[in-house]
């Protein structure tokens, strides 16, 4: 048999490395790839994709019973929740300051700072901290958090094209990174990255959230956007080269298919199995189109996704 040289793609660009976490504590670096996801033969993949556990600062009101019971009493306190997530092998904590929402408690910046301090005492994992997605409240609580966690290099969010100046400036002042969210369009993600960098944010302090679609709810659009962002980055476009954050947990669990127990066809099967499959399918698919930070809800999904990452990083085949 003649020896065949497998063609190797030579990319000009490389994904931007972003380091999260404080001095003397656990740090995580994402990005740095010079190839498409898991194509080790084409280029380097210096850092494995990571799993962030989604933690709320208040007991979740509308989560499915099986994800609530999986976390148990830990849900009552963000510190306990984060600690349990760390024990279950999360690489990062994604802390959502839901209670700051004007309709869910309207808690203050001071409270947010206190919550973050408690979480940081409970675990030394790096933190992504986002507000309630209400511009004014986001600015209020994130400014307080950034100040309280100075030097801890959090990723702060959520930055959008309508609301980026305050959070970006705060992040720069406190040595933090930001999560920038654009509505599922490659150009809009890139535009937001440019706007953030124009304010002065270093390129290594930016994580993209290009918006996730769950299985059955636009997953293929998300896949295409992730993939095109990544291809552009590898072709040398520095403004699309930021690591990608994916909300597989949040987006999957809010769909009917993950939650419905009654009134659905028998063929849908057991909700407990179905819901996990929904989250895992979404996560595993988008993992392979370029996501570096996978935010998940259920401990079991964290296990499964980590297992797949392990094997893909070890150049093994898929999980049997």
């Amino acid at each position: 048999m003649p020896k065949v040289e497998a063609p190797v793609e030579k990319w000009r660009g490389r994904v931007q490395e972003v380091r999260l976490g404080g001095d003397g504590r656990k740090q995580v670096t994402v990005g740095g790839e010079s190839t498409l996801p898991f194509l080790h033969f084409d280029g380097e993949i210096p850092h494995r994709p990571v799993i962030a556990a989604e933690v709320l600062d208040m007991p979740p009101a509308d989560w499915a019973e099986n994800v609530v019971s999986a976390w148990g009493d830990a849900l009552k306190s963000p510190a306990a929740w984060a600690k349990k997530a760390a024990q279950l092998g999360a690489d990062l904590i994604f802390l959502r300051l839901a209670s700051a929402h004007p309709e869910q408690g309207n808690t203050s910046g001071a409270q947010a700072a206190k919550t973050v301090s408690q979480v940081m005492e409970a675990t030394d994992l790096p933190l992504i901290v986002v507000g309630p997605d209400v511009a004014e409240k986001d600015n209020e609580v994130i400014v307080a958090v950034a100040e309280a966690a100075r030097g801890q290099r959090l990723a702060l969010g959520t930055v959008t094209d309508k609301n980026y100046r305050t959070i970006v400036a705060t992040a720069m002042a406190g040595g933090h990174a930001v999560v920038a969210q654009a509505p599922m369009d490659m150009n809009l993600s890139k535009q937001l990255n440019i706007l953030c960098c124009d304010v002065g944010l270093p390129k290594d302090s930016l994580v993209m959230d290009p918006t996730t679609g769950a299985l059955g709810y636009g997953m293929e659009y998300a896949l295409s956007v992730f993939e095109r962002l990544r291809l552009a980055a590898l072709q040398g476009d520095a403004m699309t080269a930021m690591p990608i954050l994916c909300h597989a947990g949040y987006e999957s669990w809010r769909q009917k298919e993950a939650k419905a127990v009654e009134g659905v066809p028998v063929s849908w099967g057991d909700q407990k199995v179905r819901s996990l499959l929904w989250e895992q399918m979404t996560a595993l698919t988008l993992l392979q189109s370029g996501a570096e930070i996978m935010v998940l809800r259920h401990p079991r999904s964290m296990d499964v996704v980590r297992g797949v990452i392990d094997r893909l990083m070890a150049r093994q085949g898929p999980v049997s």
Partner: protein
Amino acid sequence: MKTCRVSFQPGGAVVSVSEGTLLLDAAARAGILLDMPCGGQGRCGRCRVKVESGEVTGRENIHLSQEDMAQGWVLSCTARVVGDLAITVPPKVERDRAIVELPSARAAAQIALHWPRYPALRRAYLELTPPSLEDNAPDLERLRRGLRQEANLEGLELDVYQMRELGATLRQDNWRVSATLDASGPGNRLVDLRPGRIKGPLLGLAVDIGTTNVVAYLVNLDNGRLLGKASRMNRQVSCGEDVISRIVFSQREGGVDTLQNLAVDTINVLVKELAQAHGASPEDIGDMVMAGNTTMAHLFLGIPPRYIREEPYVPTATHFPVCTARDLGLAIHPRASVYCVPSVAAYVGGDITAGVLASKLYESDTLSLFLDVGTNGEIVLGNKDFMMTDACSAGPALEGAGMRCGMRAMPGAIEDVRISSLTLEPTIKVIGDVPAQGICGSGLISAVAEMLVTGVISKGGKIDLDYVLSRQPERPRARPGESGPEYVLVWAGEAGGGTDITLSEVDLENLVRVKAAIYAGIMVMAEKSGIPLDTVERVLIGGAFGQHINVEQAIQIGLLPDLPWDKFHFLGNTSAWGAYNILLSKHARSKVEELVAGMTYVELIADNSFMNEFTASLFLPHTDADRFPSVAHLLSR
């Protein structure tokens, strides 16, 4: 460091400055304050002075032509003293003029007749032999014979109404008559028959019906001379600002009739104005050519345009029957023929085919990009071997509609804006010697470009209130307004209307969408034809609005591609120009019919490439900064 003596004329002031001093600073030392609307960045070209003798560095600037530079002109904000100098400072008026004489603001090409003059309308004066017992041919036969023998005109056509009056008319001045005939069809259609010899010239009307503005040219068909031009806002605007809302209106009960009447009313007002100005009677106008987009043509003729709007976007027709003024209610000669220039497709109309005819793009080897920017943006790429065309809906912002302080380009409209990068204070130029009342399309492009370059707005088109406040703590020009942040171009005290003239973020978004649509249309054309934009040798800018675009600033906001300025040529109102040629030459008329058949239409919504390009263009100047290297360079300063 070397000290240099710099003298200034007039006045004769002499100052000593060290080598490397900016001329601007040397002038200030001599007590001469030069205006710097752009803040001294070499962007506006208004601080030009002439170096009579001596050496300076920094002579080159895009605002100076080779000729200017050879004559010693420099910009005092970029030129630095090298040795002893003698400088002439031109009077302020002259310096101010430089702002309108930017290379990009060159005068549009003059309307011209490209074809041998051969109008379809002709007039013959006949002295017929009166009938007798020996020569007892009927009146009509006598007229035919006269036309054949005295004017070499065959195939007279007339209707029964004309025939009823024929006997009396011929006899009224003892068999002396003037016959006006329309030869656009196969025969010679009798338009007018009058006793005696008619004194005045034979007149024709070339009309460009734009979605927003209507322009009419009165033409002397005997010698081809353009007698006058008049324009008005299309009265249909009251029924919707763009083509789509017009079509929606037309679907109401009686909507088509209403719109048809409004178009005709607009033209009739222009006809009256032109006739009065030239001592003519509207009835003297015996021929008319109309160029307009496909929807305008449908509405002008009273054809329901609704299918243009519904997938798969098919018009009732692209070629229209020649009709008479009476059919349409036009106040010119009732039997005057009215020819509508044919369209290519639903969104590439007769204004574009007329424009291509005027541009002569079709007979050149040079690869040209023809743009007609108005409420719709139409694009033609090609040369004598091929032509491709597409169209995008831009909206009426560039024509002054749909913006809070928008207005048409008429006295009182801000047409040029410069913002000082140091003080963020604007310097405006207003059409006519009157206080500003609003801003027109070219002023809008100019304002947004300056706001971008000076950091008043982000690349996302959002006003940076904090930055403006930091530079203007006393009386910031940017403030939170009713509909989000806004920028004050003119304070109420200086404005004609007594209220602040502002640009809000909503207005900015509006303009960004307009420019994104046009640029995306250009890019999709380049992509589909496989012709990279930088291989385009000429960009021909037509349309009524085009001639007012400042290319430099249009590139800065990403409306026009970042190509060398000398590739851009302004043709003026090519639609009316084309109509004028068709009115005066039957050859031009047959050529335009041929052109329509030779243009390939690209449907932008057939796939998602337009949407991709459009979203990428919703940024200043563009999401892909590499496509606008000159702007990226400017913004990095």
